[in-house]
C-alpha cells in the first residue's frame, strides 16, 4: 500500500515539475502585454465576447487575415466571465496581462477604462478615419465620442432590443396581435391568469428581482426609454431622469405584480417553455433557439414588438434600449501590436461582406449607417425576417449611459426601485424618489 502511494506521489511530483517547466515555457512565448514581436512576427491577442458565435466569427477573420499577412499572428479567445466579462478584463489589466484588443465593451465600461488610462484613443492611430469612412459609420459612431473629444470604442453592432410575445398563447386568449399599451397588457394579464392560474405568467424572468447592473438594460431601460420618449436619464454627472415616465414604468410593473403577472424565479427558459408569454428578446437568442427550441417560429408562435407605452401615448413613438457594444485597443499593448490591431480591424471592415457574415452568424446588426440600403444585408434580412425589426428600429434605440460609475448607478435602479417594486416592497412613487436620492448621492 505504502509503496504504491509513494509511487503515486513521485509521479505527481514529476508531473508538477514538468508542469512548471512547460508553463514558464509557454508563458514566455505567449505573453501578450509586453513584447509580442519576435522574429518579425507580431502577435496580438484578441478577446471576443463570451458568446460562441462571436468567438467563431473572430477566429475565422483572424485566420483569413493571417493567411494574407504572414507577419501577424492573432490569438482569438473568449473573455472569461468571472463573474462578468468586465471583471475579467479589469483583473487582466490589473495583472498587467491585458490583451491587445477586445470586443464586448459598452459605453459605460469604456468610460471607466478610459478614466483609468487603460485604452488607446483610437482616433490617434493611423487608419482609424479610413475605417469610419470605409465602413460607412460616420453617424453611428458620432455619439460614441467621449467627453475629452476622443474615440475610445469602435462600435461593432447595435440592435434595438425588442419584446417577444408568445402568439400561440395570445391567440388562445383571443388576441391576434400583441397589445401595445400598459392597460391593455394588464387586462391581458388578467385573462391569462383566469385561464391558466399559476401555470403561466405574463413576464417570467428571475432577473427582474436581481440588482446586477447590466440586467436593467433588458427590463427597466427598455420600458423607460419608451415611456420617456428617449430621455437621457443621466447626462454627464447630473441626474436628468423623467420622473413622470419613471413612475409610470414602475406603476406598470406594480400593476403586473398585483395581477400576479410577474414571476421573478429561477425557471429554465421560461418564455421558450411557455411559463411566460412576454419577455425581452435579443437577436443572439435565435441561434440558441435553433438548437434548443426549433418549434419557435417567427410570426407563427412568437412575435416581436417595440416596448409597450403608457396609456395615451402613441405606440408608434415607442423607443427602446440600444444594445450596442464595441471594440477597444488597450494602452498596455506595444506600438507594433496597436498598429497590427488597427490594421486588422481595417482589413475586416473594408469589405462589407465581412459585416454581412457577422450579421448572418451572430444575428447582431452591424453598427453602420447603410444597414438598410446596402444590398449585402438585404439578403440576410429577407432570409431571416425576425432580424428585420432589430435593424429597422436602430434609430429608435437609445444607447446606454457613458458614465464611468454606470455599475453603481444601475445597481441603484434595481436595489432602490425596480427590484423592490417587482417584489411589492415599495410603492412606485416612493421607489423612484429613493432611487433619485441615491443616484444623486452616488454621482457626487
Amino acid at each position, binding site marked *: 500500500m505504502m509503496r504504491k502511494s509513494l509511487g503515486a506521489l513521485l509521479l505527481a511530483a514529476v508531473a508538477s515539475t514538468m508542469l512548471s517547466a512547460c508553463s514558464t515555457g509557454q508563458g514566455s512565448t505567449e505573453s501578450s502585454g509586453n513584447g509580442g514581436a519576435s522574429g518579425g512576427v507580431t502577435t496580438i491577442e484578441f478577446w471576443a465576447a463570451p458568446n460562441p458565435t462571436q468567438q467563431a466569427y473572430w477566429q475565422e477573420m483572424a485566420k483569413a487575415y493571417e493567411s494574407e499577412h504572414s507577419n501577424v499572428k492573432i490569438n482569438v479567445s473568449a473573455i472569461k466571465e468571472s463573474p462578468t466579462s468586465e471583471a475579467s478584463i479589469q483583473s487582466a489589466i*490589473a495583472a498587467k496581462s491585458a490583451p491587445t484588443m477586445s470586443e464586448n465593451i459598452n459605453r459605460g465600461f469604456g468610460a471607466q477604462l478610459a478614466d483609468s488610462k487603460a485604452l488607446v484613443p483610437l482616433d490617434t492611430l493611423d487608419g482609424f478615419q479610413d475605417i469610419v469612412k470605409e465602413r460607412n459609420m460616420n453617424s453611428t459612431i458620432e455619439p460614441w465620442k467621449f467627453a475629452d473629444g476622443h474615440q475610445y470604442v469602435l462600435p461593432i453592432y447595435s440592435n434595438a432590443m425588442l419584446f417577444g410575445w408568445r402568439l400561440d398563447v395570445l391567440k388562445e386568449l383571443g388576441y391576434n396581435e400583441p397589445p401595445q399599451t400598459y392597460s391593455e397588457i394588464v387586462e391581458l394579464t388578467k385573462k391569462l391568469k383566469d385561464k391558466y392560474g399559476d401555470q403561466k405568467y405574463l413576464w417570467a424572468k428571475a432577473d427582474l428581482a436581481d440588482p446586477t447592473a447590466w440586467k436593467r438594460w433588458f427590463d427597466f431601460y427598455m420600458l423607460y426609454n419608451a415611456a420617456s420618449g428617449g430621455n437621457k436619464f443621466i447626462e454627464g454627472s447630473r441626474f436628468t431622469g423623467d420622473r413622470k415616465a419613471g413612475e409610470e414604468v414602475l406603476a406598470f410593473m406594480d400593476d403586473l405584480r398585483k395581477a400576479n403577472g410577474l414571476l421573478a424565479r429561477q*425557471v429554465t427558459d421560461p418564455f421558450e417553455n411557455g411559463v411566460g408569454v412576454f419577455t425581452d428578446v435579443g437577436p443572439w437568442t435565435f441561434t440558441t433557439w435553433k438548437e434548443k427550441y426549433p418549434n419557435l417560429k417567427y410570426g407563427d408562435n412568437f412575435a416581436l414588438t417595440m416596448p409597450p407605452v403608457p396609456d395615451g401615448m402613441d405606440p408608434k413613438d415607442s423607443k427602446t434600449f440600444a444594445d450596442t457594444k464595441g471594440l477597444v485597443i488597450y494602452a498596455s499593448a506595444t506600438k507594433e501590436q496597436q498598429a497590427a490591431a488597427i490594421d486588422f480591424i481595417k482589413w475586416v471592415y473594408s469589405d462589407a461582406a465581412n459585416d454581412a457574415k457577422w450579421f448572418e452568424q451572430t444575428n447582431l446588426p452591424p453598427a453602420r449607417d447603410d444597414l438598410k440600403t446596402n444590398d449585402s444585408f438585404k439578403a440576410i434580412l429577407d432570409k431571416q425576417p425576425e432580424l428585420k425589426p432589430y435593424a429597422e428600429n436602430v434609430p429608435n434605440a437609445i444607447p446606454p449611459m457613458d458614465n464611468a460609475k454606470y455599475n453603481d448607478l444601475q445597481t441603484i435602479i434595481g436595489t432602490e426601485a425596480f427590484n423592490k417594486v417587482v417584489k411589492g416592497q415599495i410603492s412606485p412613487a416612493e421607489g423612484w424618489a429613493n432611487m433619485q436620492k441615491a443616484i444623486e448621492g452616488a454621482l457626487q
Partner: protein
Amino acid sequence: MDHRNNKMGWLFTSPYLLYSLIFFFGPLIWSFFLSVTDWNLIAPTFNLVGIENFANALKSPSVHSAFWVTYKFMIIFVPIVTVLATAVAVLVHGLPRFKSLFLIGFFLPYLSSGVVSSLIAKGLLSYTSPMNVFLRKMGLDIDWLGTPLSALGIVGLILAWKFTGYYALILTSGLESIDKEVYEAAAIDGVTDRQRFWRITLPLLYPSLYTTLILAFGVTFGIFTEVYQLTGGGPNNATNTWQMEIFKQAFTNLQAGYASAVALLASVATFISIFIIRKFLEIWGKRNGWV
C-alpha cells in the same frame, strides 16, 4: 538543542517560513497599505486617503449586512449540522454491521464542490421543479432564493448537507472511544435511553463535539461559493457574506483599497468572534463538568 538540531530544524521549517514570508507577511503589510489608498487596481496612480475607506465601510449597509449575515448563518447552520451529525453518529454507532460503509456514504456530500451543489440546488428549487409544483398544489408558493429567510435557510442547508457526514465521522470516533463497560453498568442500574444519552453519552462525547462545533463555527466565516453561485449576496444583501462583499468590492467594483479596509474589518470581527465562541464553549463544558 545542539548545533546540528538547530541547522536541521531551520532547514526543515524553511519552506514554511519562506511561504509565510511571501504569502502571509507580504500580503498582510500590503493590505494595510492598500486600505489607506483609493487605488482601483488598474489606474496608474492613486491617492492616500487615510481612514476614509474605513469610515465609509463602517457606514456601508452592505458591510453591516455582511457582519450580521455571518451570525445569521451561525444560528441556522450550526444547530442543524450538529443535531444531524449527532443523530447520524448515534444511529450508525448502534449498527452491528456495515458501520464504515454507512459512514463513508454519509461522508460523500463533503466531497462535492460548492459549484456543483449550487447547481443541483438551483435545479431542485426552480419554479417548475417537482417539489415546487407539489408545494403549489398544496397551496404553498415559496420564492426560495428570493426571500431573505429562506435564502439564508437554503444556503445553510446546503452547507449542513455537505458537512454532516464529516462531523458524524468525528463524533463516531468519539463514541467508539467510550468504554462499553460504562454502558453496561448503566444498563444494570436501569437507566433509560434518554438518561443514558444526556448523562453518559453527551459528557463523554464532549471533546469531539467541541471539535465539530469549532469547525462548524469556523465554516460560517468563510462562506463564498454557494452564495456567489446561488444568490450573489441577495436578496437585499440578505446572504451577503464577508467573502462575497470583499470579492464584489475588489473584483467587480474594482475598489481594491476599500475592499482591503473591509477585509481588515472582517478579520477583526472574525478574530473576536472565534475567541468569544471558544471561551463560551469551554465555559459551557466546564459548567456541566464535562471537561
